[in-house]
C-alpha cells in the first residue's frame, strides 16, 4: 500500500507501506545491541517505514529507490555540507561503492569527534549512533551530509 507523498515541487514520490513484523524479527531485534553496544535504541521495530521514510517522509512510509531520493534532494533544495560544518538537523546519506543511497539518517548531535545520527535500520527500530556505528557492511562505505535550503 502507498500513500500520497510529494516533494515541495509537487513531484510524486513512489513509496510503500509494510505492516508485518514476525516473531523471528521480534526475537532477533533484541540481539542487534550485541553488535552495536554503543548504539542506543530509540524505538522498537516497525515495517511501516524505512530509513529514507524516517528521514524524508516523517516515518509514514518506505521510500526504496535511488531515483526517488535523487528527486527529493533536488526538489527540496538539499545542498551538501562539509563534515566540519555539520549541525544537528542535517541529513546524512550512506552510499554504496556504486553511489546508491543505501541508508540515511538525521544528525542529532555534533561537537564531539564524530556526529551522532538517528536512523532507522531496515525493519529494526530507530537507533541513535555514532556516524560509523551502524551496519556499514550493508549501508556502504561512503557518506555525505546535506542541509535543506528551502
Amino acid at each position, binding site marked *: 500500500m502507498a500513500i500520497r507523498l510529494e516533494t515541495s515541487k509537487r513531484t510524486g514520490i513512489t513509496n510503500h507501506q509494510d505492516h508485518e513484523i514476525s516473531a523471528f524479527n521480534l526475537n*532477533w531485534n533484541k540481539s542487534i545491541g550485541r553488535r552495536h553496544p554503543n548504539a542506543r535504541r530509540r524505538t522498537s521495530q516497525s515495517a511501516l517505514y524505512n530509513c529514507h521514510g524516517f528521514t524524508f517522509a516523517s516515518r509514514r512510509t518506505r521510500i526504496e529507490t535511488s531515483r526517488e531520493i535523487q528527486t527529493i534532494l533536488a526538489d527540496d533544495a538539499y545542498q551538501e555540507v562539509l563534515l566540519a560544518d555539520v549541525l544537528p538537523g542535517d541529513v546524512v546519506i550512506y552510499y554504496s561503492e*556504486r553511489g546508491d543511497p543505501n541508508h540515511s539518517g538525521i544528525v542529532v548531535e555534533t561537537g564531539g569527534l564524530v556526529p551522532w545520527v538517528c536512523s532507522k535500520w531496515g525493519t529494526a527500530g530507530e537507533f541513535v549512533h555514532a556516524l560509523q556505528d551502524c551496519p556499514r557492511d*550493508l549501508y556502504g562505505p561512503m557518506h555525505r551530509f546535506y542541509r535543506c535550503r528551502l
Partner: protein
Amino acid sequence: MIRVDRYDLRELARIALLANTPYSLYHALAKSPPVRRMIDTCSERELREYYDMISARRGRSEVDVGLAYAVLVALLSLPSRRDPVDSSRLRWGGAIDDLITKSATPTQREVITFRPTAEIRQPEPGRLIVPRAE
C-alpha cells in the same frame, strides 16, 4: 548441492532485515560468502529448483526470505545462465533483477585493432616532377 549452515542462515536473515532498499540488499548479498559459494559451486538447475521451492513456500520467515533472495542473487549472477528467472515472486526481486542486468559484466571481449593504411603514390617512371615555386 547448496550448503548453508546455521550461521549463514542467520547472516542472510540479518541482511534481509536490515536492508533498507533493494540495492542495499543486493550489494550485501552479492558480497556474502554463502552467495559467493553458491555461484562457484552450484549449477543453474540446482539453484533454479531451490529457488522455485523456497519462493513458493507460504508463511516465509526472515530466514526463508533471506535465503530466497540469496539464491535469487546467485542465480541471476551466474555467468552461464540461459533461461530467464521469475524474480517477481519476491517483493524486491524485480528491482534486483534490473540492477544485475544493468551492471552485467561482459563475458567476452573483442579487441578491435586499428591498422592505419597509407596510400603511397609513385611517380610514373621516366617523368620528372619538379615542385612549383611559390
